[in-house]
Structures are given as structure tokens and as C-alpha cells.
């Protein structure tokens, strides 16, 4: 009972055979070997599997692969342009927005969605809109700062002083 689906993933036309019950995340990971998209829960809470589906950030564990037939999907592997990281990737690196890295691809893709909806969000808006993405390592502080810095960078403005850095961290960072 396998079905054939065709979709554009990271700009490339792809085709695959899936069971009707196969989730998009499993098709991406197992069918296309795009293992940057992670599975952290099975109830749609953690957001580690967030990808862009037709430009919108969605949890790919909540979408059947067959539902993505004909769609355009972007995963974290398709975010950088050549050697240049997307400003959100760069900001996560610059401001230590990740530790174990497992939630990071989902966080980054969710942040793409946030900044698409609102190019200049406040910290509070960022926190509110990241509610669907859980991180157990960072306490979110540097993630929020990274999204804010990316927003600023994407508008071509100088980045605001990162709120996440501590007085001590800033002072001793020689």
C-alpha cells in the first residue's frame, strides 16, 4: 500500500515511496537521509522536527508524508547559502544559542518562521512564539538573544547588545 510522493526539498525535486502512515519527519530522515531534522517527542510538544512547509514553520512529526506531496520543504540542511550561514544560524553560533545541539535545527527553523511573520519581534514575542520548541540545555536566554540579533542583522542594522551576555562574561572575554 505504498504511495509515491513528489516534493521539492531544499530546492531539489525528490520522489519517494511511503506508507500512508509515514510521518514527514521519518520520510525526511529515513527516505531522504536528511537527519538534521530530529525527533524529540511523539506528541508534538518539543518542536525538534520543525521544518518549513511551503514557507511556514511546521512540526514535521505532525504531518503525514503523503500530505506533503507536491509541497516545498526546507530543512536545516537547506538553510545556508553556499558557505554562508543564514543569519539565524550565525546568530545561534555567535551568541551560544545551543549546547547539545539536538533541539537546534528545530529552533532555527522555528525562528525562520517567527521572523517571517514579524521581522522585528520583542523578546517577549520571541519567547511566546518559541513556546512550541523545547530546549533542556540553554534556559532559552541565549536563544532569545540570538533570534533578536538575527532579526537585527536581517534588517541590515547593527545588532543590539546581546541581552544574554553576563557582566562577567563580557568583562572577561578578552
Amino acid at each position, binding site marked *: 500500500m505504498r504511495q509515491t510522493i513528489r516534493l521539492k526539498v531544499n530546492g531539489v525535486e525528490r520522489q519517494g515511496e511511503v*506508507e500512508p*502512515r509515514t510521518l514527514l519527519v521519518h520520510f525526511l*530522515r529515513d527516505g531522504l537521509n536528511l*537527519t*538534521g*531534522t*530530529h*525527533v*524529540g*517527542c*511523539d*506528541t508534538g*510538544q*518539543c518542536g525538534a522536527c520543525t521544518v518549513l512547509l511551503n514557507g511556514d514553520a511546521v512540526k514535521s512529526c505532525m504531518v503525514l508524508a503523503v500530505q506533503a506531496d507536491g509541497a516545498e520543504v526546507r*530543512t*536545516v*540542511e537547506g538553510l*545556508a547559502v553556499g558557505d554562508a*550561514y543564514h543569519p539565524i*544560524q550565525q546568530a*545561534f*553560533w*555567535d551568541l*551560544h544559542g*545551543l*549546547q*547539545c*545541539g*539536538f*533541539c*537546534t*535545527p528545530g529552533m*532555527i527553523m522555528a525562528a525562520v518562521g517567527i521572523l517571517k511573520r514579524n521581522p522585528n519581534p520583542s*523578546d517577549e514575542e520571541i*519567547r*511566546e512564539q*518559541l*513556546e512550541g*520548541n*523545547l*530546549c*533542556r*540545555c*540553554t*534556559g*532559552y*536566554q*541565549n*536563544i532569545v538573544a540570538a533570534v533578536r540579533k538575527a532579526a537585527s542583522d536581517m534588517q541590515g542594522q547593527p545588532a543590539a547588545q546581546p*541581552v*544574554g*551576555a*553576563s*557582566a*562577567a*562574561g*563580557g568583562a*572577561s*572575554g*578578552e
Partner: protein
Amino acid sequence: MAATSMIGAAVKRREDPRFITGHGQYTDDIKLPGMVHMAILRSPYAHARIKSIDTSKAKAMAGVRAVYTGKDLEGKVGNMPPVFIIPDANFKTPAYPVIAIDTVRYTGDQVAVVVADSPAIARDALDQIDVDYEPLPVVVNEEEAVKPGAPQLHSDVPDNVLFHWKIAGGDPDAAFQNAEVVIKERFIQQRLIPNAMEPRSAVARWDPGTGELTIWHTTQNPHITRFVFSLLNGIPENKIRVISRDVGGGFGSKIDTYPSDVVAIFATRDLGLPVKWVEDRRENFVGTIHGRAQTQEAELAATRDGKITGVRVKSYANMGAYTSTGPAAGVPTWLFGLVVPGAYTIPNAQIEVIGAMTNTTPTSAYRGAGRPEASYLIERMVDRLAGELGMDPVELRRKNLIPADAFPYTSATGLVYDSGNYQAALDKALAMVGYDSFRQEQRQQRQQGKYVGIGFSTYMECCGLAPSRLMDDIGFQAGQWEVGTVRLLATGKAIVLTGTSPHGQGEETTFAQIVSDKLGLPIEDIEVVHGDTGAISMGWGTYGSRGNAVGGSAVYLATEKVLEKSKKLAAHLLEAAPEDIVAENGKFFVAGSPGKSFSIQDIALQANLAWNLPDGMAPGLEENSFFDPLNFVFPFGTHICVAEVDAETGETKILRYIAVDDCGVVINPTIVDGQIHGGIAQGIGQALYEHAIYDENGNLITGSMMDYVVPNARQIPFMELDRTVTPAPQTPHGAKGIGEAGTIASTQAVVNAVVDALAPLGIKNLDMPLTPERVWHAIQQARGGSNGH
């Protein structure tokens, strides 16, 4: 020594590029040709006899390769062994089979295992296994479990008492007899679920040609699991390779060796095919260890003017249904006992812990393990005492904090605190929060009907697990030293090997900083390799805030040896005496003559070519250093929380969170801050949100992320950090540990703030988590209403 110090530099993490681009390699990302998939049937009952298991339908399914029950594995793999056996505690060692044989003892206990061609077929086949259970009586609470007549879990553990130990220092009985004031309180350290974002998983591959087993798995300590697999699966230790390069968080839950991994190894040998097992989140909730779960009776003795003279604690620790193959009884209860006196000069202490077996998931080390439970207890008690005496909690703390000139300080429980300046951290935090004006503002807010409070935590902790000798004293069945290897290749690039196994802590960066700083090598030229027993001789892993304190120290000492040899070789090439050689910014030259020099890269090349070495010098430039410190390290600091409670809804809002931490010398301030952020978030999680709840039948009713609150970005406040630096005297670089401090410090700061906010209502204590419902009920009760109207 390089002139430009890398120690203290906010270097961006070297591990990040692979993570931000989706190119990390976690265990679930591993795919091998011919790989088959394993799924585990877990018990729906908390306690039941297995009358029969019928696997015939599952075995007959297309695509199913094998189905194993406990009986199939009996005699072929060993039982899960305890790793900590606390001495003088009448410690019991009940059998813990990798798959239950005739009895299941908690919801989630392994009953059968299917291996199939796809994960979906394996899951489908689980539904085709018929198990006939005969339910048995259940006990889930630690105090109930040890009462006469409680349901018994193991025939060789009478009264479900796994262990019972007591330690005392000074004369606690006399202290309480002579006390002017005695405070008593009961604390419930609710059960928590670690919830690392990456579920556990394993890919096991048996090579029948060489007789070698390779297993990629989610562990914090690959060498320890290699040892356990060797023991249980009967494969020589030198024929096992454990790989755990990228691990998506652990927080203690990936220290343990689990039955699932042992079965995957059995299956790959049995089938001759690579076997993958990936836990789903609901399985993680029941099948991976839990933490905390203690009920404590605490007493504090003091004089009327606020000098604490004694502390007495009796705690019931819920160990779950089996002794997990990890810290289990060890760190979570024993370190708990040792640090109960906290940062205070309390001369008399007695701590007693009873380990209770219950029909619940086994407990083990969750971030902080034992120290959050102790720190919460003492910091809450100090606040309770302040309330009783009508003293300001800061004044009471000042009166009892160990003075800076008293270090090294021997506590009533026999720990020797290495170094500290507790008042300096407190002063800094008080200045940050503006405490001078806080109480006046609080009075005004109270007049306006607002419930705003401030909570303090002048914590200390004990970590950097090692020393091996002390760990042996407390019943750890292994060593706790580390080895670091620094190898310079002919091209001037370096490989650093560490037996610690970071999974988010950033040691690929900090250890490279240590080496770069000493040798003057560009940090880009240094690769830190971890998480591979095939490459690294030995190590005991990353937990207990030991990565840098123990592993980093070993790397530091190995680098010093490389430097010494480099100087000798430079001296030979420069025709000078080694003692006249200066090493600076990666250049070696004769003192006073920097014009003629050899670079560290030149030295590496010459050492590897070995064309022109001094007589007696061996070729190569590679050094090992083993490090086993003489003592733990003792980070400390002050955390302050300012919180407001909405009396109408019971909701707590954290208005400010201030943390001043001292972890000795800081290698990378950005990484240290990140560790503190994450630690605080988990501590706040315990204070306000997280609670693993079992019903009376042993069902975990908070069994998914829909029911158990892993805090989200809106639930964690902005944190204001600063630090003091008091070097560790017993690590070569002066660093202590910082992985757990945030968690150890923060929970009580939040609860103290909420209790302070509600003090006008006469509320003295609240059980965690401080959910709006609980707080609202407490407010209603305090106001004398029974239903809130």
C-alpha cells in the same frame, strides 16, 4: 606560556557549525547496511506476575526477525549490576534481569523485545504478543513502602529497604538538647524526569569475523558502559568499541547502562545483523531513570541570636523497582548527606537515609543529584529559622556563613571544602538586586496589596567527581580519575583525547583552549576527540561537574608534558640548555634572543621526523597524563529570586533572577554562563512546574510532554549573571565545576521568594511544584476560607 591568554577567552564553540547546519551525528542518525530494528514491549502493570507470554503470532509476522523474552535470555546475559554499593548500609542487591522473567515491578519494565526489518513492523509486532499478567499489590510512595504490611517487591529485600545508613559529626543529640530554638519541617523533593531532548538509542553491530562489537549509543560515559557490556554480554572488554560522539543532552539520565542496550547487543550477535533501537518519548518517560523523589524530615537547632548549632535529617529516598546501573543510591543519597550542612558553620550534624524500593521507574542521578535535595533543605531551613527568630534572612546567613579565612574548612560530615569566599558572592548579589532599598519597597508593595518576595540561596556544592579513593569509600564500584592525551602531528596539528564524554558542555572548545593557551597553537589546529573507546584509552565520563575539573586537568597536565619535551627539543636545535628556553606565543627561543626561534609546528615536525633528536629522546610528540585529585571541588555562590504571587490566581511571576556563581578559574565565560542558564532553568522547573506523578496503581499519569511540564521559553525568566573567582587549589588550572551549580542553587531561591511573598499570610512552607492551584489553595487556607469564596 602564551602571552595572549586563551584561559578566560569567550571563544565561540568549535562544535557548533555541525549542529547549526544539521550535520551532527547523533545515534539515531547512524544507518548501517542490513540494519534491523528493535522495539520493546513494556509492562502496563506496575506489579504483576507474568503467567505466560505467547510470542507465536509476532514471530509469524512477515519482516519479524526475532522475539525475545526474559526466559530466552536467562543464563545468556547477566543481570544488571548495581554500580554503587554503599558500605555499612545493609545494602541489598536484588536481581535485575535485563528482561523481566516472571514478575514485572514497574510500569515500563521490559517484558519482551522484537527485532524486525523496520521500526514500524517491530512496533506492530509488539501488539501481537499476548502476555497473561496476574496483577499484584502496588506501592509507589517511599514512606509507605517501608511500613509493615506494604506490598513486597523483592523476596531478598525485607520491608523494601534497599539500604539504610546514618552519618553523624559533632554531637547532634547534645546540640538539640541544648538548643534555644528548634525548627522542624518536612520537605518533599518531588520526582522529576530528566527529559534530555534526545531520547536514548543504540545501534549495535557484531562483526563475526573479528568477534568485535561496535555500539553507538547515547551515553555520558562510554568506557563505563563498555565495561558493563563486557560483563553482561560476555565479550572481552578489548573487543568492544563504544561510540557516543554527539549526544543530545543527558542531565544524568545517560550515565546509567540500560537493559535495552544489553538486549540490542545480544540481538546483533544472535542475528548477525546490525540492530538499531530508538526510544520514543513516552518510553523515555517510563524507561529512563527519574530523579529526586525524597521525603525529608529536617530539624535545625539554633541559639536565639541566630547561631545555628545543629542539623538533623531523616530522608526516605525512593529508589524505584530496581537499583539502576548508574549512580542510583550513590550520588543522589550519599552526596546529599555529605552536603546537608551547606555553606554554614554548623558543628553538629546527623543525616539518615532509608532507600525504599517501590513499583516505580528506578531513580538515579538527575542534574545535581543529591546536592539540590540538600541545598534546598538547608536553604529553606535557614529561611524558616529567620522567620521564627524575626531576623532578616541575609543577616542570619551572614552570621552563619563559613568565613573566607576558614578554608580549607572541615564540615561536620567530614568534607574538606577546598576554597571559598561566600560573603563576597553574597555582597555582589545583594548589590545587583539593590537589597538596601528592597525591604522598604516590599513594605510599600504590601500596602498596595501586592505579594512580592525575595528568596536567597547562599549555596555551596561538592563536585568534580573523583577522587577514586573517596569514591571507593562511598561505595562506587569503579575509579573516577581521568586521562588526557595531547598528540602533535608532523603537520603541526594537534589531537587531544579525553575520556570525559561531553554532550553539550562544549569541551571540544574549552579543552582546545587549554592546549592552545599552553602551546601557542592556533585553536583551529586542535581537534578534541571524545566519545570513542576505540580512540581513547580510558575515562569515566561527563557528569558530576567533572568534565573540566578532572578531564580538563588531565589535558592540562598532558599539555605541560608536551611543552617540556618541546623545550628540550628546542634547546637541542638551538644548541642551548633546556632551562634557558622560553616558550611564548608558540615560539621557542633562548631567553633574551627571540630573533632565532623555532615554532611549535617546527618542533612537532622535528619530533615526528626524528632526524635530529637529542640523545635519549624518544621520537614523536605525544603525552598522556593521568589525573586523580585528592579532593572534590566546591563551587558556591548566591542566587536571589524576586517573585510576585498573584493572590487571585496563585500564579508566580519571577520578576528578577540574579546569580553570582564562583566556579574557580573560568576557561570560557560564555560556556560557563550557558551552563548556569540551563542549570537555573531546570531548578526553576522543579520549583514551579515539574512533577512526575504516579497514581496508586503505579501508573505514571504525567507520562508525556503533554502532562509533564518541561519549561518553555515563556516560563523561564531573564537571568542576570555575575561571578567571583576563587581558584580551586587542587586542580592545575584552578577551575572547579559548573554543570550542576545552577540547578543546585536555584530551586530554593524561587521557593524562598514565594514563601517570603506570602509571609504576611502566615505561610511558612509550600510543597513543590508551586503550581497556581497549590499556591491558590494555600492562600485560601491561610485566609481561613475553605473553598476560596
